[in-house]
């Protein structure tokens, strides 16, 4: 009898939606982990079944409870998904799952399946087209509303963050750069005051803990037209212990930018150097102090705070 053909499609789609529903309460991947088959296979088979044998029989769709129920289910799921996505956007990632234990990815898959099955079945029935088109319009409107709502929320968060950063309207560009980049910017400005424009300065390699002071392109922006040389980072301590092979007349005395409690890796350069003098920088006061000394000897963890940053003038 023709009814059983449609029931087959209906049962398959119910099974697919049940699987998607379980995964929205648990998590995507739950079915595969515990039952060892991929839900995607069920979804695809259902889709093919609907295309070939249709979900419900023609004609008179207006009188059929099933397509109407399906339509409202599709709209309802779309609205619920939209509301939950908006709540997630307003609060924080994972807000919905942590509050009501619904996994948004799973819910979206389930909603998508309902629409796909609904559309696939209706598209095969010419008389269902107006029903389909209205539903598509409603869904599109809902998605646009959701997208716009999330966009406006994100824009407002961005504006709030940006306006908070603009607290001191009277700051100079240098003060603004300091606010943006932190003490590493102040270090480069003190370096510029202590070295001539044609200086060549050796910097540490761009590895932990010198990811900013070792980043040549960043440092070069702030110290240009001075030249910079450094070793290519390798991650190893042997690289940190060496100085670049190229000629240089200054060496950046760079303690390191990380905030780890273990101070033993900090301090660069790590070898003794013959010097004409060393300029030590106070990154809090923004001042420098010149000490005439003929050798720089690294002192590791015993380095006093006021001797951690500066620049070494290499002896000829």
């Amino acid at each position, binding site marked *: 009898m023709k009814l059983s053909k449609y029931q087959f499609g209906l049962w398959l789609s119910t099974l697919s939606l049940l699987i998607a529903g379980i995964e929205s309460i648990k998590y995507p991947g739950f079915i595969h982990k515990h039952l060892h088959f991929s839900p995607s296979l069920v979804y695809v088979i259902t889709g093919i079944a609907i295309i070939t044998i249709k979900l419900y029989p023609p004609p008179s769709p207006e009188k059929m409870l099933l397509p109407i129920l399906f339509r409202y289910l599709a709209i309802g799921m779309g609205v619920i998904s939209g509301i939950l996505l908006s709540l997630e956007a307003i609060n924080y990632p994972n807000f919905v799952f942590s509050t009501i234990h619904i996994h948004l990815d799973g819910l*979206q898959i389930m909603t*998508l399946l309902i629409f796909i099955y609904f*559309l696939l079945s209706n*598209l095969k029935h010419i008389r269902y*087209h107006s029903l*389909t*088109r209205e539903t*598509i*319009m409603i*869904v*599109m409107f809902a*998605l*646009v509303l*959701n*997208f*716009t709502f*999330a*966009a*406006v929320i*994100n*824009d407002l968060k*961005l*504006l709030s963050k*940006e306006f908070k950063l*603009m607290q001191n*309207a009277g700051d100079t*560009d240098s003060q*603004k*750069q300091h606010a*943006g980049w932190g003490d590493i910017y102040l270090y480069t400005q003190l370096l510029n005051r202590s070295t001539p424009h044609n200086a060549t300065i050796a910097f540490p390699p761009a590895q932990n803990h010198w990811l900013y002071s070792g*980043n*040549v*392109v*960043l440092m*070069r*922006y702030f110290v*240009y*037209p001075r030249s910079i040389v450094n070793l290519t980072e390798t991650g190893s301590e042997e690289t940190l212990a060496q100085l670049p092979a190229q000629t240089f007349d200054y060496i950046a005395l760079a303690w390191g930018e990380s905030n780890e409690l273990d101070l033993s890796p900090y301090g660069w350069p790590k070898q003794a150097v013959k010097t004409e003098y060393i300029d030590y920088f106070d990154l809090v006061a923004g001042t420098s102090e010149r000490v005439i000394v003929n050798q720089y000897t690294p002192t590791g963890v015993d380095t006093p705070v006021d001797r951690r940053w500066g620049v070494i003038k290499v002896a000829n």
Partner: protein
Amino acid sequence: MILTTLAGQRLVQHLCPDQTKIQQYVLGNLMGFGTYILSIFVASSSGSSLNEHLLLILAIPHFLLLISLPTQKQGSTWPPKRDLILYLAILLLVLISLTFNWFWPVRDWDALTLYDFRAKVMTLSQDYSPLYGNELNYYLAYPFFTSFVHMIAYIFDFQRPAIYYSLLYGMFGVYLYEFLRLKIPRYIASITTLIIMLTPEIFHHSFVAYTNLPYTIYIVITILILVQYQESKSNSWTWVVALLTAIAVHIRYDDPFWILPIILCLYIVFKQRHLYPLIVTSGVTLLSRLFWLNFKKDLLTGYGQPKSSLDYLSLLSTIDYRLILIRFADVLMFLYKTLWTSFGHLLTITLLGYLYLQNKKNRRVLLTLYATIGLSLLIVIMGTFVTSFYYSKWQIVGGSVRRMMMILYPLTIITSALTIWGKHDS
């Protein structure tokens, strides 16, 4: 900028006379100022010093164009007064963006270390030579377009070059509205325009001195012009498309969407039996690409760092073909994770719009837009797939891929709006 915009507008008047007045000024800026920047590149790569004299001399051709081309009085229209509210809304967004760009000096990472640094070097030393060094490959990662924009500001002692991005953002909004208001109800056109301008990625990039927004604007407007004129019997619009694509190539060389206008012109060849758009667009675009490619190769070779061209045959021989399907699945999963959160809504809307469109008549023009969106996705899938074989860190550049796909925001939103409310005229 004003002079080049006026000259560009005069040219657009002749090439695309049915564009509205505002569209002409926007296109005039994109083309006029864009070609001016390209001329700086051509002159400097031939050895000219980068100083204010060069900038003034290079403005002369635009001045001559402005005075030699007669004004077309008929055809184009100004927007009606009732559109003032929308323009005020756009102005408000631009003012917000301008506030940030006026307050801050250039600040984001690549904006600082690459685009703005090149500008400062060129301003101080009047050529590129200080860029030669171990990082030359990094400094040549992108063409000099936005660096030249910054340089122009610095040469004339203006320390806020990033307002260029705010102005571009405003022009984009204005152009989109003008494009839409003639095709869909005015209030829908207003809402659509504002949705695009408020898309967080686009809004944020209006106060970040990156190349993504300028590139997006150039490519999207090029596609809209192509869509608008694809059934036109006249060919003069082709030069607008060709020049805009050539300029886009000099903003971001490696992004693959320069190919979209060429493919669309190929479609025109099949439909209209018109070879002219394809020849002009592909010729000008490929010439533009060749220019940057050779310039970069010469510099790298001259400095002793020849960029080894990828030996695709050797690469093919190293690929284990049994793993191709697995790699393809990995690429699809990577792109899904990278792009779905940003574009999932819009792609779903687009798909639904396509289904909605099936029963509409006169949908040829819209199908072009849908095809463009589909092609963009295909390009990024295939591009990522190929890249995965020679760049081992391909899975950590999700942010770059997302920014690269920025063209999808306006394209999908416009397409959906035109689908539902458009008259589907050619």
